[in-house]
C-alpha cells in the first residue's frame, strides 16, 4: 500500500499525481453518457425547445400546483417523522483515530466519548469506535468505515466494516447498504461494504436479508456476499478466531467488581464467539459462587480471562469454539 505514495516535498508534480489519482474518478462510460444525453435532451426539447413555447404557460401552472402539493406532503411527512432527527446513539469509545461526522465534504467535526452520534450525517472512523445505540445494542466501527445514521433504528453503511451486537429483547434495528437491508433477529453480525460487494458474517442468532432478488435468513456461522448485480454467495464460517480479531479488540469493557465469575465467563464466551464448558462439578461450583474484585480495564476478552482465572483455583483451555474451564490439579 505504501508502494505508490509519492514524496510530496520535491516539486508540484507529485501533488498533482496524488490529487488526480485520489479525486479523478469517472464511473460512466461513453455509452452511459450517450444514453443519458438522449434522455436529458428529450426533457430539454419538451421544456425549452421551440415546440414547447406554445404550451409553456399551462405547464408552469401545473408545475406550481405540483410544488404546492409536494410542499403539503413534505410538511405532513416532516410532522410525522419527528423521530428521524433523533441520534443514532452515543459514543462509548474512540481509539487509534478520530470518529468524524460531516454534513458535506468540507464541514466536519470529531465525536468524542459521551457525544451523541447524529442521524443523517456522514460518519467516518479513522480508528476503531464503539457506539451505544439509542434503542439498545452496540455498534462497533472498524478503521476506514463510512456510514450514516438514518435514525435511532437504522444505519446506512457506505463502505468499510461494522459489527452489531444486540442484547435479548432489543428492538428492531436495520442495517442498509446499496445491496439491501439486513435486520437482526437477536444477533451478533458483521457487515462490510467493499467495492460494491456487501458481506454479512453472522456470529450469533440470525439476520433477515432483504435484497432486490430475495428475502433470506442468514444463520449463525454463515457468511454471505451480495455482488453489485445482486448475486448471493454463501459459505460456512467459524464464529471464533482471526476473522473476528478486530471485533474482539473493540469489545465493551466488563466491570468485574462484585460480579459472579460465571457472569464474567459468559461475557468472555459472548465476546469471543465461543461457549464455556466445565470439566468438573467443582469448577462449576467455583464459577457460580465466586465474586470478583478489581478491574480488567483495557484487556481483550481472552487476556482478561487469563488474568482473572490466575487468581482462582481454576484453569482453562481454548479449543476451537470451546472454552473449557477445569479445577487446577
Amino acid at each position, binding site marked *: 500500500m505504501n508502494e505508490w505514495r509519492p514524496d510530496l516535498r520535491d516539486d508540484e508534480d507529485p501533488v498533482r499525481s496524488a490529487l488526480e489519482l485520489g479525486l479523478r474518478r469517472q464511473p460512466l462510460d461513453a455509452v452511459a453518457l450517450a444514453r443519458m444525453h438522449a434522455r*436529458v435532451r428529450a426533457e430539454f426539447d419538451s421544456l425549452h425547445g421551440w415546440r414547447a413555447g406554445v404550451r409553456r404557460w399551462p405547464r408552469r401552472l401545473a408545475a406550481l400546483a405540483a410544488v404546492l402539493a409536494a410542499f403539503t406532503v413534505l410538511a405532513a411527512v416532516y410532522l410525522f417523522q419527528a423521530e428521524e432527527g433523533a441520534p443514532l446513539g452515543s459514543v462509548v469509545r474512540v481509539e487509534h483515530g478520530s470518529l468524524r461526522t460531516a454534513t458535506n465534504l468540507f464541514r466536519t467535526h470529531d465525536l468524542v466519548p459521551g457525544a451523541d452520534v447524529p442521524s443523517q450525517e456522514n460518519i467516518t472512523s479513522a480508528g476503531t469506535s464503539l457506539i451505544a445505540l439509542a434503542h439498545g445494542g452496540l455498534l462497533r466501527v472498524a478503521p476506514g468505515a463510512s456510514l450514516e445514521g438514518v435514525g435511532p433504528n437504522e444505519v446506512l453503511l457506505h463502505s468499510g466494516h461494522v459489527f452489531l451486537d444486540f442484547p435479548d429483547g432489543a428492538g428492531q434495528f436495520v442495517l442498509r447498504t446499496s445491496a439491501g437491508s439486513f435486520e437482526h433477529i437477536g444477533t451478533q453480525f458483521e457487515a462490510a461494504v467493499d467495492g460494491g460487494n456487501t458481506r454479512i458474517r453472522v456470529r450469533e442468532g440470525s439476520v433477515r436479508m432483504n435484497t432486490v432478488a430475495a428475502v433470506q435468513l442468514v444463520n449463525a456461522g454463515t457468511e454471505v456476499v451480495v455482488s453489485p448485480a445482486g448475486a448471493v454467495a454463501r459459505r460456512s464460517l467459524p464464529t471464533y478466531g482471526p476473522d473476528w480479531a478486530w471485533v474482539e479488540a473493540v469489545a465493551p469493557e466488563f466491570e468485574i467488581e462484585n460480579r459472579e465469575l460465571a457472569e464474567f465467563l459468559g461475557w468472555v464466551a459472548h465476546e469471543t464467539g465461543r461457549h464455556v464448558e466445565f470439566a468438573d462439578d467443582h469448577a462449576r461450583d467455583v464459577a457460580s459462587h465466586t465474586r470478583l474484585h478489581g478491574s480488567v480495564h483495557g484487556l481483550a476478552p481472552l487476556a482478561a480471562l487469563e488474568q482473572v482465572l490466575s487468581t482462582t483455583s481454576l484453569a482453562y483451555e481454548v479449543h476451537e469454539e470451546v472454552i473449557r474451564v477445569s479445577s487446577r490439579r
Partner: protein
Amino acid sequence: MYQEDRQLVARMLAGDARAFDAFFASYARRLAAFAARRTAFPAASIEDLVQTTLIKAIRSLDRFRGEAALFTWLCEICRNELINMQRAAARRPEHEDIDALVESDETLLELRASDDTDPLCALEMSSHRSVIAETLNGLPERYARALEWKYGDGFSVDEIARMLGLTTIAAQSLLARARVAFKQSWPEEQPP
C-alpha cells in the same frame, strides 16, 4: 459575475439546442465524478443520479440567477438528489413473511470474486482516496474546493477563476497556496 454561465442558460431557455449540447458536454462527466467521490453507489445508480440532477436543472433553469457558478448550482442539486437517493434506498419496503422464511432451506451458492476489479488494488485506491479526502478536509474550504475543481473535475485555471469570482492571476495564486497547504498537511505515514 458568471456572465458566461448566465448567457449559456439564457440561450438554453431560448431553446438553443447547441447551448444544451455545450451544457451537457461541460457538466455531465464532472457531475458523475463529483457524485462518485461522495458515494459507493454502483455506476448505474450514479447514472440515474446525474440524469435526475440534469433533468431537475433543466426544469429549473429559469431560477438560475447567476449568483454562483453554474457548476456550483448543479452540485447543490446533485448533493440533494444524492441524499434523497440514500434515504430512498434506506426505506426500501419489506414484503415477505418471516415465518415462511424460517421454514425454508438456505441456498448454498458458489462464492464468486468480482471479475472486473482486483480487490487489493481497489483497497489501495480506497485507502488513498481516504487519505486525500482527510487531507482536503483539514484545509480551508476555499483551498479544498479549488483543488477538487482543478484536479478532480479538470477545470482550467480560467474556469476556476470565473467560478470563484477572481482574476486568473488571483486564482493561480490561490491554487499555489492550496497546493503548498496540501503538501504541508500530507501525512508522513499512510494509515494502516
